């Protein structure tokens, strides 16, 4: 190992807490997006199982709408269109929308579509008594969350201080362009090490549940 490589490893080590903090923001954004999106998507799924055809049609229309809006565009839409600050009615407290919340709301739109489609099926199975089939929703939901974790990296485009954005900060702060490639690869590795094992686990759970269904 030559001097240059040692310097690179040292720099990565020094900046690791900062970068991990950024990755925590990615996970926070993804979890929030899942919570918001699942809640709204669940509402749409319930409406889709309604006996009134008009309600079903409305729900399908909204679901189709959420599918047609790219999350990156929606992110820009929210960040520019929401007021940067507003007063809570009746008080003198001003509140703003932090970037991570905007990113969560934007990514939630994809989760709404996903939940609406998948939960409709799960709820239908549940009502028909196929409880174990309905449980398949859980591993697919978790796998989808990992997709959202990866998608949360686009929040850097609107300046949210998550992992990708912090990589750029590190390169700028050290003023060393030679650090660019190692830092980006390091961040890639973080994403992979988080997402790959969980995806494999969820696949196993899915297979186990599906196998359990056939035997029962």
């Amino acid at each position, binding site marked *: 190992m030559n001097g240059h490589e040692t310097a690179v490893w040292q720099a990565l080590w020094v900046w690791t807490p900062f970068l991990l903090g950024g990755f925590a923001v990615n996970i926070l954004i993804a979890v929030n997006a899942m919570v918001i999106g699942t809640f709204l998507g669940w509402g749409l799924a319930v409406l889709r199982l309604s006996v009134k055809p008009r309600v079903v049609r409305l729900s399908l229309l909204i679901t189709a709408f959420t599918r047609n809006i790219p*999350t990156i565009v929606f992110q820009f*839409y929210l960040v*520019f269109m929401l007021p940067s600050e507003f007063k809570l009615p009746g008080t003198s407290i001003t509140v703003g929308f932090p970037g991570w919340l905007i990113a969560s709301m934007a990514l939630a739109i994809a989760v709404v579509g996903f939940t609406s489609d998948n939960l409709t099926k799960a709820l239908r199975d549940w009502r028909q008594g196929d409880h174990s089939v309905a449980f398949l929703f859980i591993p697919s939901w978790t796998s989808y969350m*990992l997709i959202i974790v990866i998608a949360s990296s686009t929040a850097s485009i609107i300046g949210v201080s998550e992992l*990708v954005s912090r990589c750029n900060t590190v390169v700028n702060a050290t003023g060393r362009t030679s650090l660019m490639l190692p830092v980006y690869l390091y961040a890639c590795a973080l994403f992979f090490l988080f997402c790959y094992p969980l995806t494999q686990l969820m696949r196993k759970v899915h297979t186990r549940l599906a196998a359990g269904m056939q035997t029962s």
Partner: protein
Amino acid sequence: MKASWSQWVVALCIVCLQGVHAGEVVAKPSERLALIKQRGALIVGVKTDYAPFGTLNSAGQPEGLEHDLAADVARRLGVSLTKVSVTGANRLQRLEEGVVDVVIATTGDTVERRKIATMVEPNYYASGVTLFMRPDQSIADWAATRGQKICATQGSYFNRAMAERFLLDLQMFNNARDAKLAVKDRRCVGYLFDNTAIQGDLLLPEWAGYKAPLPPQLVTPWAVAISRREQGTELEYFLGDTLAEWHRTGFLVERERAWRLPPSQFLADMRTLWTSLGSDGKPVCVRDAEGRWPAACRNRIFLNSTDASGLRRLGLWWKEQTGMDLSFVYDSYDRSRFLLGLATTVLLMVLCVLGSIVVGVAGALVVEARIPVLTRVARWFCNIGRMTPPLLVIYVFVFGLSSALMHTVGVAVEPMVVVVLCLSVYTGSSVMVSFLEATKVVRASEPGYRLRLLTFKQILPLASPSATAALINVSKATMMASAVAVPELLSVVTSIMAENGNVAVMMNTLLLTFFVLIFFTTRLLDWVDRMLRGGMP
């Protein structure tokens, strides 16, 4: 009968008079011009605190670019020049009081100021807002400043607009000195300030190596100002013609160079405009019968619907009525940018969808071919492709590897190609997984089944829903290209928005455009899917 005869004569006379006057400008006589000639001196209000436009030299003598302009005006009038030092606060007041004849003192031309003074067109210079940055700063465009810490001085009129249009995280300082030191200490990415002032700083030895490469934003043109009462007089026309000639002959560009200012885009564009010839071989910028410059030669921020014609007139009228600025429809420059962005996005979508299909099909075939090493490699490729953010991989190639490639092979990496490759691998991996899953299901009922190009149709009904979903996703993800400065729709829309301030209009347009694009992509993919399945034996 008599009455109608006299009416005819009057009408004929009017026609004759118009005929005589066409092509020759009728200007009101100017009281001020008469006074200047009578006294034999032109009194110009200039600055002495704004280097290099107006300053005091080491001998205490006033000089500067604007002083040169004043001297040239006096020379053309054949009178001597008297300079009066004015400040930003009193320059227009001095004009109103009649103390000075003309003001050439870094006066920004705005709609408000046009109510209290006559701003002579064309404008002679322009200033905007830029970023003063450290020598090692790698930020190359405004989009890269989103969310970054930027130093600014309290009370600058542009702080709020810049923060809103570029999502800057502004760190406020009391004065320019502190803000610049904060840049030096790496406490912020750059200092947001007027570009002409920053250009002055960059000439100082203290800031050697510092730079301000970002194109100025919120550009305000500078105008030669005369009294409000002199509007439409010989004096205004004389100054306007002089300014036009300065642009045509390159006098302004030459003075800019002489004062060691970096070449401004504004002067270069103006020179091109004022020397351009129409399809009939005549200069585009000549005064019309009423003495006005044509709309094409005027600054579009001062145009209203009565000045323009055709589509632009309709667009400006709509803007005046509703406040909605649809510049991407009526303004030819914005329109061509918008259409180019749209075309780039459509091209990106097509290439990414095709690329993903190729990667997916090829990957699935390799895995199924069960070639010892290659199958393993393909599986890992697929895993890594799916589990790393495409944006990060794009950065790895565009920023990390491009410099290495440039040094070793001398090849520059085209960002658009990188985006298509990275997104194709990311989505192709998902497509590949859906093919392999479907193969597994088919094999459960038909143990001997192997995926080959010829047996592909068998898995299509099972694989196509998830594969189609992935392909729709990749067409949505093409906007990532804006992060590496590919001029696709998102980056075009944000730059049109930053220049015109029509945030709501552009954001709604963007959302609607994508809605329609994705709608048609979905329809198209469904149709292809049906065709493929319909062709099944």
